């Protein structure tokens, strides 16, 4: 393995582990107003009047009337208001903000606000939803003919639930008017330029009228991709209106009820099978977008592009819709639409294989894509598809094939075992031509007179290690010790727009820009002089242009691959399942730091296990999320961490730094199908079709068996 893979101590390790890092909640409160949001209590209503209690001096109420520019947050369609318009569309929507010096008094005043509503009929059930924010379709081949000629036809529906990102630090933003009239906004975030752009629109100012800085951020997982733009605009409006610094840090319940999470989904798959080949898939994907469109367009795109999985299916028809419901807007979470469709297609393959009396893995292998094959969108798999070798590696690591046979025998007694496997990819980087047409990333290196080099890029450290891996790349090219190269949290007043911290793109795309910049800096290096070099994104020459209108072309330049196997044991007395082992093989190209990558892979696997099992969140008919605390919404604890074995299979990507590809999202994507396949085997092979599959579901399934 490349020497760059050797682990170093993360640059932010010391301050974080010793408690010296300053998070947005840690800045002194003196002179800062505490902001508390007034949330809607109804899923859909006209807001007739807000009766605000008499406010003591120094206390303020702000709402849509205080927005100096346009009351719309720039995300994709810009339909989400900063503060509600004449109607509220979900429980938790921000109506206004109370601000003042004393937190408790602000909360009391907020609670004393009386909102007069005219109730409207909400749509909270996804199955009853009809309004589509986005509706896409694409396909190739002759699907109808393939169904007409099929030996067998399958028709199944799969469901997935919400998943809460459960970052350890809740959402928090702070806005401070600066003396020159500029608004300084900072806090817990992934994408400083998203916030920056949203602010210019809401404040009605030019790009120099705002400055956005990412504070030390306690986890994000996608949850801080869109919401900080919303909260950032809210505190900025409050700071603009009051002329004082305003900070709003959500409490946990508020955060869980009112901020984005993974889209619940219903996927219907029809399959035509001839021999042991799937000849056609006819797929209908529905995502619950919630009340505003926010990021649903791009989440849905990634979801439907991945819908046929890692298989070469000659005839495909895919329809995808993101439907509006009067519930919290869903957004980004590790995997970004793909976990839902990969779950569906992998369970479908499992079920077809069983029906055909074939081994589920062998059936998958017979249908796999290979290098040079066309992708679902008629792009090309330009690089090797290492899945067959990875399958063998997993089999060696956990004796998958042997256990699969062993556990297929009838089981009785308290504990029953199963093992399941799934195959998936993560399309590395932004979907489609986003990198070329929208992001147009720029990154800079600034060399100081003393020979130290600062990386200027807008990617934020959110635990994924960019403050360490970026400097590793630059230090290597420049031949400098790692402590001579540094990368601070991004400040839009200082760094160019190298794009958001999303889509597992930072290392692969921006890391490569930095590598190229470092090569140039080395060539131009003059001792004792201050120097700066800048690099711009170039689309790889091999990449086929992607048309979003037709869903045609290379949706991604390359792919990271995963094989995931889960072995579990079900307690038939209680319904609880214990994961005996989670084994996964990942091809993320060259790891730029083994510890960082291993941490990412293990963490993602565990989040996937939570998503598949205990992480259950839903809303009642009124649209209220009840599991809004960590005693109601369970995530795996240290004691639930099973035997995690993560392996790396390296297929170098020539356009990534030293062969690196996108990594962060990959480990979660394949877990639900592997988990449920294992559960299905343990429960005797009945067809299961939803996650999370909880202890209650197990007891329910066993009751059916007896009944």
């Amino acid at each position, binding site marked *: 393995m490349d020497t760059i893979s050797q682990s170093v101590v993360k640059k932010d390790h010391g301050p974080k582990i010793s408690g010296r890092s300053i998070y947005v909640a840690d800045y002194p409160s003196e002179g800062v107003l505490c902001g508390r949001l007034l949330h809607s209590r109804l899923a859909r209503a006209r807001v007739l009047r807000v009766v605000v209690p008499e406010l003591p001096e120094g206390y303020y109420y702000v709402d849509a009337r205080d927005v100096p520019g346009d009351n719309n947050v720039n995300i994709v369609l810009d339909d989400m208001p900063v503060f509600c318009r004449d109607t509220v569309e979900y429980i938790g929507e921000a109506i206004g903000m109370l601000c003042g010096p004393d937190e408790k008094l602000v909360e009391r005043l907020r609670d004393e606000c009386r909102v007069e509503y005219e109730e409207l009929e909400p749509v909270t059930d996804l199955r009853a939803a009809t309004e589509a924010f986005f509706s896409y379709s694409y396909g190739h081949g002759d699907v109808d003919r393939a169904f007409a000629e099929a030996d067998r036809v399958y028709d199944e529906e799969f469901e997935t639930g919400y998943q809460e990102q459960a970052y350890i630090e809740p959402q928090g933003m702070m806005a401070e008017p600066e003396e020159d009239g500029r608004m300084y906004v900072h806090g817990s975030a992934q994408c400083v330029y998203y916030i920056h752009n949203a602010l210019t629109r809401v404040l009605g100012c030019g790009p120099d009228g705002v400055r956005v800085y990412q504070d030390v951020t306690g986890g994000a997982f996608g949850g801080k991709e869109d919401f900080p733009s919303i909260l950032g605009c809210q505190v900025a409006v409050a700071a603009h209106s009051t002329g004082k610094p305003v900070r709003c840090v959500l409490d946990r319940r508020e955060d869980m009820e009112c901020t984005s999470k993974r889209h619940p989904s219903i996927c219907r798959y029809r399959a035509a099978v001839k021999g042991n080949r799937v000849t056609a898939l006819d797929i209908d994907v529905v995502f619950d977008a919630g009340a505003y469109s926010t990021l649903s367009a791009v989440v849905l795109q990634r979801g439907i592009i991945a819908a046929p999985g890692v298989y070469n299916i000659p005839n495909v028809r895919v329809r995808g819709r993101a439907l509006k419901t009067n519930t919290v807007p869903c957004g980004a979470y590790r995997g970004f639409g793909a976990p839902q469709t990969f779950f569906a297609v992998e369970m479908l393959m499992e079920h077809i294989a069983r029906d055909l009396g074939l081994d589920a893995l062998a059936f998958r292998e017979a249908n796999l894509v290979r290098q040079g094959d066309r992708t679902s969108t008629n792009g090309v798999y330009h690089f090797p598809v290492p899945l067959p070798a990875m399958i063998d590696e997993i089999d060696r690591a956990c004796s998958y094939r042997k256990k699969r046979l062993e556990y297929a025998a009838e089981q009785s007694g308290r504990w029953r075992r199963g093992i399941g496997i799934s195959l998936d990819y993560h399309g590395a980087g932004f979907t489609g031509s986003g990198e070329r047409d929208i992001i147009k990333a720029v990154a800079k290196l600034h060399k100081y007179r003393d020979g130290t080099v600062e990386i200027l890029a807008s990617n934020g450290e959110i635990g994924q290690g960019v403050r360490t891996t970026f400097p590793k790349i630059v230090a290597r090219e420049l031949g400098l010790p790692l402590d001579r190269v540094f990368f601070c949290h991004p400040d839009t007043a200082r760094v160019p727009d190298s794009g958001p911290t999303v889509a597992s793109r930072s290392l692969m795309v921006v890391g490569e820009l930095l590598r190229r910049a470092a090569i140039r800096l080395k060539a131009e290096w003059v001792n004792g002089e201050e120097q700066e070099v800048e690099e711009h994104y170039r689309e790889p020459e091999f990449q086929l242009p992607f048309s979003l209108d037709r869903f045609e072309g290379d949706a991604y330049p390359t792919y990271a691959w995963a094989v995931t196997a889960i072995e579990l044991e079900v307690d038939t*007395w209680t319904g*609880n399942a*214990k994961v005996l082992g989670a084994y996964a093989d990942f091809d993320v190209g060259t790891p730029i730091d083994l510890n960082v990558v291993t941490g990412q892979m293990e963490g993602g696997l565990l989040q996937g296990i939570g998503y598949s099992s205990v992480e259950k969140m839903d809303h009642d008919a009124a649209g209220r999320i009840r599991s809004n605390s960590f005693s109601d919404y369970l995530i795996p604890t240290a004691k639930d961490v099973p035997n995690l074995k993560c392996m790396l299979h390296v297929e170098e990507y020539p356009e990534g730094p030293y062969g690196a590809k996108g990594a962060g999202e990959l480990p979660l994507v394949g877990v639900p199908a592997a988990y449920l396949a294992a559960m299905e085997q343990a429960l005797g092979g009945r067809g299961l079709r939803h996650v999370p599959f909880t202890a209650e579901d197990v*007891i329910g399934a066993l009751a059916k068996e007896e009944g």
Partner: protein
Amino acid sequence: MVNTSGGYSAFSLQEALELRASQDVIPYAGGTDLMVGKHRDADYLFLSRVPELRQITEDAGYVRIGAAVTFSEALASPLVPQLMKEAVSGIAAPAIRNAGTFGGNLANGSPKADSVLVEVASDAKLRLVSRSGERTMDVDGFCLGRGRTALRSDELIAEVLMPKQSPDCCFYEKVGGRSALAISRVSFAGIFDTQDGRISNIAAAFGAVADTVLRFRQIEAMLIGRTIEEARALRDSYVAAYAEQLVLTRGRVSAEYRRAVCLNLLNAFLSQCGL
């Protein structure tokens, strides 16, 4: 006595009882529930330094666990019954077991309290003290449901009295949503004993499924005094009696799930007893 900003610290039981009677205070031992509770502005009576409440002792009939004894201390004590240790070792996580106490688990009034379940199954008694005297009551009558207890506003829980017994068979199972830091969704404790070939005790207690820990003594009576053979013959009707009585509430999980798991655990207990 120290009057701190959050309330009062007592250093003897006498001092604690004086404060309890004269001030509007919430008794605070480990504070693991109170710290995350809603009484942020309340005055607390801090009890963790009252020596009389921190001992584990025994006499002829009972192991006596002080109300401010922590779960970790109980786990380290040779006196505490094994069944109790089994339950206590599954409470929350080590940091919480280092602070959480037997008195707090009781006073919290939750049917999900894991130590209380074992106390109910074991026919434990509580010694309640006040400035004007003391009384001993069955733990079964102490918890009244939904956070309410029989504790008077001038009283403190002094001790839990665990009957000394060495039964033929004990059974404990906690069903949480995960392996640690899990509030019980269903919990079950069973104690089985025979004397001269006849069943002398068959206690079955169900936690976390209703307002209080459930125990059905009239059903237990079906088998008391029976031989193993007779009890085996009665097993089906015994289980059916529970099935009829277990009318459960829904909480974080459905009532049907709770009922199914309760019956599974009851059956497992009976099988372990050889019935």
